[in-house]
């Protein structure tokens, strides 16, 4: 699957498929939503694989991960704090929320579906995959988050570009991923999408159609998109750079690329993960069966979470957004960790549908979601009876979800 319609020419992303800027902006935001979602999953998947000894790189659930946060000028102090993989994933989810808020203002339904993995975006010169943390994976993350100068080569190099040897090293690692090689002149990164969003949003702001909300704070939304872009290009980039060089894993934070040399070494940052699906009777169904059962429960929580977010963005109901956070912090995080650390299996994040609007109207969507929660409850009871639930998994997540859907 491609990112659909995101094209680029020699100068970067092209965003003129629609003559009408509102249609173009909606299209771009939907693409951004899918990418944010996919990247959040990729970061989470990688985080699950990080060895316990490197907890500061993986990240731990902390107070900041339990609630909704807002990026903004005053919050910039917090954004300068060292970032870990969990925080980066959390921030991508926040970006997902921002993008969907913006979509709502444009009158569009939420976009909660991820892309299927591996996600071969025609925006990026490699597929985005769910991979255990290894150096090629980190190189792709670096590429995603880099601004247009950092990893440029040839005529696009600027004073802000990384040393040529570093750029070559990153590109060489990306080439190992198996996708097409990195075009020497290609400049598109995550920021390209947001740069285009800001440009088109400005066009909408200059002449907003009458059917959109009157007196809308267009500039505030453009600024928020700018902050999202900066968080990636600065904060996330620096984190992945320190992981790529090995500095994130050393006590003195000095680069140690040797840490990536031997996957069998105790020093190696991550464990290998077997990937597959939790759907049964597929060519790549997860083995062993106990891991598959746990992964299936993980899928249920993931789908419940997406269904709740979909409902929340349709109805502006923050209650369901908090309930969705509970699904992550009380259940999904612990399942992902247990699958990786206990079974050597990656959380599949299987996609259920193209849309997570589970009903033709809100009432029915709540009913269907409730059924999904009850399905999870049944699974929890069976796994619990077999002693297969992770130690930190909170079974009360079911009651909380049911209460929030009443």
């Amino acid at each position, binding site marked *: 699957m491609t990112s659909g319609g995101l094209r680029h020419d020699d100068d970067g992303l092209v965003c003129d498929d629609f003559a009408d800027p509102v249609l173009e902006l909606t299209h771009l935001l939907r693409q951004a939503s899918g990418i944010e979602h996919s990247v959040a999953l990729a970061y989470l998947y990688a985080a699950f694989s990080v060895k316990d000894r490197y907890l500061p790189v993986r990240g731990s*659930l*902390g*107070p*900041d991960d*339990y*609630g*909704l946060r*807002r990026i*903004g*000028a*005053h*919050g*910039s*102090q917090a*954004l*300068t704090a060292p970032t870990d993989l969990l925080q980066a994933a959390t921030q991508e989810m926040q970006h997902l929320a921002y993008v969907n808020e913006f979509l709502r203002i444009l009158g569009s339904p939420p976009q909660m579906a991820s892309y299927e993995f591996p996600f071969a975006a025609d925006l990026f010169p490699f597929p985005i995959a769910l991979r255990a943390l290894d150096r090629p994976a980190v190189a792709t993350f670096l590429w995603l988050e880099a601004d247009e100068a*950092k990893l440029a080569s040839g005529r696009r190099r600027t*004073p*802000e570009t990384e040393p040529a040897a570093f750029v070559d090293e990153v590109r060489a690692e990306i080439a190992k991923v198996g996708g097409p090689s990195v075009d020497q002149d290609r400049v598109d990164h995550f920021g390209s999408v947001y740069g285009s969003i800001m*440009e088109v949003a*400005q066009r909408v702001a200059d002449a907003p159609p009458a059917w959109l909300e009157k*007196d809308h*704070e267009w*500039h*505030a939304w*453009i*600024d928020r998109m*700018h*902050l999202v872009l*900066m*968080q990636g290009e*600065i*904060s996330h*980039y*620096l984190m992945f750079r320190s992981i790529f060089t090995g500095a994130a894993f050393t006590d003195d934070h000095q680069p140690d690329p040797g840490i990536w040399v031997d996957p069998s070494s105790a020093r190696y940052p991550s464990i290998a993960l077997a990937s597959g699906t939790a759907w049964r009777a597929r060519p790549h169904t997860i083995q062993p069966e106990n891991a598959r059962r746990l992964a299936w429960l993980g899928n249920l929580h993931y789908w419940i979470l997406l269904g709740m977010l979909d409902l929340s963005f349709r109805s*502006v109901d*923050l*209650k369901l957004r*908090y*309930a969705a*956070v*509970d699904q992550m*912090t*009380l259940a999904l995080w612990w399942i992902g960790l247990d699958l990786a650390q206990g079974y050597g299996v990656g959380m599949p994040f299987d996609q259920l549908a193209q849309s997570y609007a589970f009903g033709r109207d809100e009432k029915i969507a709540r009913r269907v979601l409730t059924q999904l929660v009850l399905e999870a409850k049944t699974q929890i009871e069976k796994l619990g009876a077999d002693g297969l639930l992770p130690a*930190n998994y*909170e079974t*009360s*997540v079911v009651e*909380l979800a049911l*209460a*929030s859907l*009443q």
Partner: protein
Amino acid sequence: MGIFDLPRVHFHGHFAVNPGTGNNDSISPGTGFVSTADSQRVQPMIGNMTPDEFKTWIRQLTPFPAAPGLNLLRGQWNLMGDMTLKFLDVEVVSVQTTVGEVITDPAVDPLIGASVTLEHAFLCDNNPEGFNTTQIFSDALVVRSHIDRPAFGAASVFQSRHPTCATTRGINWYRNVSFHGTSANESSGGAGGASAGFQSSIEVKPEDLLDAAAEGTSLEIAQHRLLAGPYSPAIRALVAVLGDTARRPRGLTFRYNLYLSFPQMSDAEMAAEFAAGRDTENPAVGLVLGTIAPWFDGEPASATVGRKLNPTTSYVNPYRTDHKPYFLAPLVARVDPTLQNVSIDVSNTFPEDGPDADKYFMGDVTLGLRDATPPATDPNINAAPISTIGVIDNTKDAFVSHGGVVDISYAGLAPDLRARLEGGDAELVISTSANGPLLYEVEHQFESDSQCNYLDEPAPGSTWADVLPTLHVPTRPVPLQGRTPLVVYRRGVPVTGPMSLTVEQWRMTPTGDEDQVGFYRWPRLLERRTVDLTFDAGWGDYELEPAAGTPGLRLFRFVPPTYWPQERMPDQLDNQIFSESVAMVRVLPYDDYSQLIANGPTFADVYREVFMYYDLIVPAMNKRLNMSDPTIWNTPATAEYVLRSTNEAIWSTTTYMPRTRDLSACRRALLVAFCGQVIRTHAGDAAADAALAAAGLVTQ
């Protein structure tokens, strides 16, 4: 000094303000209405009603005693307001890099036409029943020029750091002589005839001015970069000033005046909306005029200081048949001997006439100079001749294009007059040919740089003397420190040394009579004392010790020995508060929840003691999270949110909750106990301990 330094960037446009009015209680100074909330106890006045009955009741019309035949909403004009403040189409209208030159052509400077917004701005009243204690919080001042001709180096956008809180500077009840909003008296929010000034300041770091030097190492710097470029002379000048360390720059200050603001729907129309089941918001839309200028070390963040002019006497408003006296609002001036220039901030001063904001014609308006009025003496008996310094162009176009800042050169005046102007023995006067002198210079300008403050009532057995010293911690938000920084200038010069002055303390809230609920009563003088303070380069501070034990709002009136009048009648104080030097402190109530906390508070406890007030009186909060729905508040994600958002460490930011800033320490303790319990139940002890620690609390 303040907004007078160059370069100046002036902006203008419309704003929308969406305050919640459920706790207003009174309509205007001296005019009581329905008491819906007990501001002392921070509780709804629910009586024998159930919460649902109260929700219906507060959304209904009731006769307005002051105007027989008129019905107004009990919750007043915007019960559903969420307290946001939005700049709608606000743009830079002009820039000034030199005195006397006003650039309005975007071809000369691409900053002209740039949009100006306040990110996530909202307002809350320190005194929910009062009129002059509005605080404005925001995340950032954002200026956005056209992308093809960026004003900030290669960037078209400047996004500031967190602006300091702005507080009402001079509520002016006399701003429009003929227009009070399209609903006229059919709205409880007939404020179209009023205005008020606000001022915030913003830190700019030296690194912000460096081209990409810190890029890649600090998002905080990258986010707030302020760079000169080829296109904007004003930004080049600004960056040069901010980079001149000899001048000790701190950043930017911006002052804005909000006027001609009124709600779009009448109370009767709103009542119909409520009756139809629609919780409609009714924001007021008005005009904003403002100025951005450099901010220097030693200057207050929330006010411009210099030489202050107060009203002498009233003038006759020909539109009023009730002969209500009208006054010009005070202004601040600066005399700059280097530039031989007097700058005057008239943004809040001269009245408009009608809905189009045309200036009310008052004849020729002149700035003059006369021998100073003797200390503490009525300026109206000062018969000294007035020498004209210059003429003020009191037209709408001039007002807007200059951002309300008038420059008058005195280079051409006779040497002796120039010397008197720059000396300390003469006073500035604003006169109109129609009414004579209407403003005169007071000898001392006295300003609190933290006008709106909060304290918690001491527990039984404890006194203010015990409590206040523990609050004087520099790392706490200044409004919570139990003291206010004061700035005093004498005819434009900062005062150094001891100063004896009178400090009065008034009870402002509740405005309802304690013995006759709902009956308005004027502020009540509680105490008058003489204090000796010491100032250093204009700065001192004053401990805000409430005089009596009950919660509510206290106003401290600072009266230098030179000030006239030394004493005010209560109604005068309320109506002419704009002339006074004041600081407020809201005392939040003490409640003993020790037993509830020991027993483990239930949601019903938390609702009754904390959430019910917001559910009924500030119902906009329900639009995001329903305050009466236990399923929301019993989830760990929400509990974490409550702990984080009520943390004192973020009190000065826009994410602090409740926005009303009326959550007492006791009630927060109750909430914390409840939230800790929720997290412990659902997410385990480790998560609860971490959450409580992050919230600045010792784990239990």
